[in-house]
């Protein structure tokens, strides 16, 4: 059953076309994001990101879009996924490209926070913890703690990161796309397990309905203005830890606001790669990511999971 996208806020960009199709996603790919040695090229990643943004908003000026999405008064949290260390975490190049765009549209350095669960996780992925407000800040929730309030939604009850609750007015969700040994895949929706204090409680039953329940929380739903899926390097088996034998260079950045649609496409990308390599489907492997369907059901209404109804633009 496809979910309704009606609940997703329509984005009005002054002077631009209104993006009323909340299920639009743009899958931008290019081999030139890497040099001959396979390392990422920062300028090429920046260009690829903004090409995705321009196509998403149907404009030729990505900078203009960033300025409409985020105001100087915003404190923008960039929620990365860095639990698996340097091998398969949100790329520095993608984070840097986002930061550069935010700075260009007038967000001051002290109003940008790159974050995940713990400082040690950031360090393991090569991000240096910085807490001075003279610069862009990088830190984990352990730096500021969790909310005093217990947030409840469906089956879950959790404290939320104070970075999400107290520090930030807007969130850019920047997950990576990879296989997950319990819930099937981890991408946009699952990334917010890094914002709750008790993710260990909610991996049972393929994370279903817990992952959907977490994303219904108003603090997540209302503050997340954009998802930039880092699909430059992906992993199709053995996740969530880094298993180099199952990673590949997909060389993509996928942009959207409908996390269900993004996960639906991510799921397909992983399944296609598994099939190509002779692996069983996630369903056959006993870990079909059913939480994506649940996120689209009328109770959660987080987006659309029917690929035929997703406005997918490939560039």
């Amino acid at each position: 059953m496809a979910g309704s996208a009606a609940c997703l806020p329509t984005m009005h960009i002054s002077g631009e076309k209104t993006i009323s199709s909340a299920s639009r996603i743009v899958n931008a790919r290019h081999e030139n994001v890497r040099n001959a040695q396979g390392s990422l090229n920062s300028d090429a990643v920046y260009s690829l990101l903004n090409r995705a943004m321009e196509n998403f908003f149907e404009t030729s000026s990505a900078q203009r879009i960033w300025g409409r999405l985020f105001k100087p008064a915003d404190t923008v949290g960039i929620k990365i996924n860095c639990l698996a260390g340097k091998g398969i975490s949100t790329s520095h190049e993608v984070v840097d490209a986002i930061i550069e765009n935010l700075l260009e549209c007038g967000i001051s350095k002290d109003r940008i926070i790159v974050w995940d669960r713990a400082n040690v996780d950031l360090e393991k992925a090569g991000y240096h913890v910085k807490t001075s407000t003279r610069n862009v800040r990088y830190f984990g929730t352990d730096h500021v703690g969790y909310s005093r309030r217990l947030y409840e939604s469906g089956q879950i009850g959790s404290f939320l990161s104070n970075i999400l609750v107290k520090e930030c007015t807007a969130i850019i969700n920047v997950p990576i796309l990879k296989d997950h040994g319990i819930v099937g895949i981890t991408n946009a929706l699952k990334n917010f397990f890094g914002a709750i204090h008790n993710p260990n409680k909610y991996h049972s039953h393929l994370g279903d309905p817990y992952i959907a329940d977490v994303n219904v929380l108003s603090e997540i739903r209302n503050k997340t203005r954009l998802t930039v899926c880092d699909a430059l390097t992906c992993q199709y088996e053995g996740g969530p830890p880094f298993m180099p034998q199952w990673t590949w260079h997909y060389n993509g950045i996928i942009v959207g606001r409908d996390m269900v649609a993004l996960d639906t496409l991510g799921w397909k990308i992983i399944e296609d790669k598994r099939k190509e390599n002779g692996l069983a489907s996630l369903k056959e492997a006993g870990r079909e990511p059913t939480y994506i369907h649940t996120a689209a059901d009328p109770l959660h209404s987080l987006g659309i999971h029917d690929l035929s109804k997703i406005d997918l633009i490939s560039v």
Partner: protein
Amino acid sequence: MIISRRKFMKDTALLCSLSPFAQSALSASAHSDDFLTEARYYEKLPHRKIKCNLCPRHCVIDDQERGYCGVRENRDGIYYTLVHSRPCTAHVDPIEKKPLFHFHPGSLAFSIATVGCNVECKFCQNWQISQIRPEQIDNLELPPEKIVRLAQKSHSRAIAYTYTEPVIFTEYMYDCAICGNENGIKSVMISNGYICETPMRDLVKVLHAVKIDLKAFTEKFYRDLVAGELKPVLDTLVLLKEMNVWTEIVYLIIPTHNDSPNELKDMCRWIVRNLGADVPIHFTRFYPQYRMKNLPPTPVSTLVNARKIALEAGLNYAYVGNIPGHPGESTMCPNCNEVLIRRAGYSIIENNMVDTKCPKCDTLIAGVWK
């Protein structure tokens, strides 16, 4: 042993000050790896995965991930407990608070817990410590030898592993119990019974009493409100009987969820049939907590009726709990109905037992009295 209130307060003042119960916000502080200990009861799987065999969940855990309990972590294919020697709280309690009514009545229990739990009861009374992870609270550093010294200093007869779920800190509990046994301090486990057979068998060898929270007598309740299963808990109870360790049962009665007379009858009959008539059962009063704040406290009449059902089913010792001063807190002789131990809350008002027997009819009263 009777100790003066002054001495008791002096000896336990430190412990009170260490309690984090008053801490309302999660600190999310980094935790120390000083006491990192390899976990027992797990098996290694390919690609640095492990399978935990401590509790019936049998979590399969990837590298750098934790089990459901949140206190055991896979690091490069080796499974570690993060809470050995790291209790989050320590108190000196009357043994009646556990509750254990037939185990050294009137004695003290040096009571400890680490954070974490292997279930998630929607009605948990200690959810602020049971449902968090070790790095989210300031923990103490108390290795087993220190626990035993503190127990001795506070004149405790036993160490009680309680408040959260001791199954998840089984290595620490086991090591404390061994150390206690070497120094004349007993050990009691206050548990949900959701544990695999092998670790329970190992624990029983060093424990002196176990209290099991039997949360309901239906799988539906366990599935919906506990995130666990009934069957393994019943298996644990049978194992405890088989291994002849003193066991008492608590049944928290939650209005509309586990209070039907038929369910209570079925449970009591099961206990008589499988564990015998001498297992004490405590029907305790529910108060709205955690994620079940929409229900009223259990009516006293429901508890009284449950006790009546238990006695009619053939159980010899049935109590009501969480109603201080209620006559159902007292121990009566199952033969002549003489009041043997009169209680008010956690206090012993009078103890009329002669050795292990009823003073009036000489009936042997089940329990651990000496």
